[in-house]
């Protein structure tokens, strides 16, 4: 399974990337299921007159997923007999490979772009602008999608990708553990500390909560709940070491110091295993966690609950969102045909069927009424946070910024430096080396 593959390493980046891959692949799947049966998508489809070959790539965690995507593509080809789509998924180093391909002018026509490097791509003109098509095509409206997602993919007024789906970050917890400890599902950070203390006193778990030292999710959600930011509004200055930031980092650091939180790498490898093996009672994940329990841990699936991210004291609700686009290469040979494929993959029916696979949430706001979300309240919880979510990614230099911020967060979590010192170092380094240079 895709999720277990992350078990040996650090969970942070890996899991998220894999998750995204998963989404992609499974989304497609769904798409198929939804589209092939009826003529729903067909009526929306722009007629593609000329015959064309489209190349497409994305990442796929395993063969099942790429097979599902292939099925969706097959159904698209059935409807558009003149179009041939060749899909070749990439297993490893997707981003590095795509960068090289784009630089060499050898990129596929349609591909996934993760929100963390979307702006790096959009700002260098390697992606094809999509609004023109969207306007011409009655089937697509910006308003159909959740605002934070569209805002995240708006680069200087234009869209260079259509969200494939997304997930917010939620608090996964073991209902039985909380009950045994007589603790409530926390809604605030003060409540979270009380719950963790209660678990620590009454239960024999490895550690009450697991975190990733280089990507403490509580820190990022706390930062945004507190009104703080990683970059200033115009994006030309790093402001992570604000009072809001320091406060948000002090909390996870203190939890680790008090033994209430531990590194996930040392407790199960990733949050899913840590919860499944009852090594821990609480972990922070996105929608990718749910199919893991459903498919691999059916008994545990019964006792795993999902709550909204607890809110820093005095702050407003906020959480992270992880998302990926379907984008087109700037020099795509048949823009209209490539667009038609993207439209098909993100259409109302396609995305609904996809979302029902449960690997990812639908990016279309109207889908909040889907029966699937009525029947699966845990997904509903994640979905309810959509409007207050902040998409993961920090402008065109996102990766360079994270390469400097993450080691400093880790440094604070490991107790090697105070939260303030770490954040100031990160801020100073990002401003000097990345944003000024």
């Amino acid at each position: 399974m895709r999720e277990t593959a992350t078990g040996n390493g650090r969970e942070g980046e890996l899991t998220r990337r894999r998750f995204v891959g998963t989404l992609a692949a499974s989304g497609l799947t769904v798409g198929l299921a939804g589209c092939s049966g009826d003529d729903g998508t067909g009526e929306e489809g722009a007629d593609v007159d000329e015959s064309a070959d489209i190349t497409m790539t994305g990442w796929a965690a395993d063969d099942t997923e790429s097979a599902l995507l292939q099925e969706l593509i097959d159904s698209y080809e059935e409807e558009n007999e003149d179009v041939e789509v060749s899909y070749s998924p990439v297993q490893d180093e997707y981003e590095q490979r795509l960068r090289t391909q784009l630089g060499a002018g050898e990129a596929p026509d349609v591909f996934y772009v993760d929100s963390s490097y979307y702006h790096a791509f959009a700002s260098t003109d390697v992606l094809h602008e999509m609004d023109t098509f969207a306007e011409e095509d009655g089937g697509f409206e910006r308003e159909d999608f959740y605002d934070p997602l569209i805002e995240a993919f708006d680069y200087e007024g234009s869209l260079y990708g259509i969200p494939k789906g997304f997930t917010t970050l939620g608090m996964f917890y073991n209902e039985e553990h909380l009950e045994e400890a007589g603790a409530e599902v926390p809604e605030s950070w003060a409540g979270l500390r009380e719950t963790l203390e209660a678990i620590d006193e009454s239960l024999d778990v490895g550690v009450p909560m697991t975190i990733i030292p280089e990507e403490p999710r509580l820190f990022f959600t706390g930062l945004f709940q507190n009104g703080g930011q990683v970059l200033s509004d115009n994006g030309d200055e790093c402001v992570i070491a604000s009072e809001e930031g320091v406060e948000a980092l002090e909390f996870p650091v203190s939890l680790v110091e008090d033994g209430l939180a531990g590194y996930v790498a040392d407790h199960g490898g990733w949050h899913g295993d840590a919860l499944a093996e009852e090594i821990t009672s609480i972990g922070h994940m996105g929608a990718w966690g749910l199919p893991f329990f459903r498919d691999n841990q059916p008994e545990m699936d019964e006792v795993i609950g999902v709550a909204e991210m607890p809110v820093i004291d005095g702050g407003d609700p906020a959480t992270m969102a992880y998302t990926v686009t379907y984008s087109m290469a700037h020099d795509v040979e048949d823009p209209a045909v490539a667009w038609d494929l993207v439209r098909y993959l993100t259409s109302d029916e396609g995305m609904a069927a996809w979302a029902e696979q449960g690997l990812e949430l639908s990016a279309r706001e109207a889908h909040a009424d889907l029966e699937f979300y009525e029947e699966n309240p845990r997904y509903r919880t994640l979905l309810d946070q959509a409007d207050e979510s902040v998409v993961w990614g920090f402008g065109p230099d996102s990766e360079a910024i994270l390469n400097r911020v993450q080691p400093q967060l880790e440094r604070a979590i490991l107790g090697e430096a105070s939260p303030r010192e770490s954040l100031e170092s990160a801020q100073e380094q990002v401003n000097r080396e990345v944003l000024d240079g």
Partner: protein
Amino acid sequence: MSLQDGEPTGQESLSVRVQERLSLPISLPTEDQNNLAGYLFVAPNLLVFSIFLLGPVLYAFYVSFNEWNILLGEGTWIGLGNYVSILQPWPWENNWAALRSPEVNLWWYALRTTAIYAVGTVPLQILGGLAVALMLDKRVRAKKAYRAAYFMPVMLSGAASAVIWRWLLASDGIINEFLAPIGLAHNWASDPSTALGGVMVMAIWGGIGFNMILFLAGLQNIPNELYEAARIDGCNGWQRFRNVTYPNLENTNFFVIVMAIIGAFQVFGIALVFSEGGPYFSTTTTVLLIYQRAFQEGHMGEGAAMAFLLFLIIFAFSYWQYRYRKSEEVDY
């Protein structure tokens, strides 16, 4: 064989005589023709080498003088700009701050990390390899099984062994199970002060097998007569090693040392898989830094410049080692 001075060789005089006797115009290949044949023989290799190695190297050298965006495949000429921004601030500024803190200048800090790694791994890889080779060169029961066992890590990919070691060194891993009773259990990979040590242990484990094979080949090339002569002269074991084995392993030694130093400065895969350069930059080696700058952040020019700086360092070590060996060379 030189024909310019001294007597003509036997073959030459023979052909001359045959020519004279038969008065036939026999033409031997001229020097140019000989050279042409030689060039033709090396041409395939030269071609492949130029296209796939020399060409890209020269291109990368050009890229290193540009601010190069890999996404666009084009750059702006900035002369030595990349080199200056990589090297400055100099390590000795601010009382060697760059070597103490990764925030000041990550290039120097990564170089320091790599140097520590090299100093910690190279001697042990070589001495370990030599020791194992000496033991397995004797008549030992199941010698071949031992050799295979020691060579096994070499056949394992770096990424696979890094994953294995990550498990072994995990806080609830098997190594800690043994260390816990004596109070030494430790979270090796998550502590900035021990993570590099973990990578080094892994490298030594892998390096010993590789060097063992090279030393074994060297040992088997030493003629037995030398040992017999030494025995007759009354040498003890140590003297035989010091005066027969060691001098005869000189070529092997040179090769092993150069390869080990190059390998140490190029360490990448195991550091990436074991700890992704962390925690807190503690396993960010030079090549890992190049990877981050060039491929993650997309600054190809900076990455290429770093790669050439690393090349200079490796070249300097290899050349120095070569000169040193020349000066030590003894003719018997």
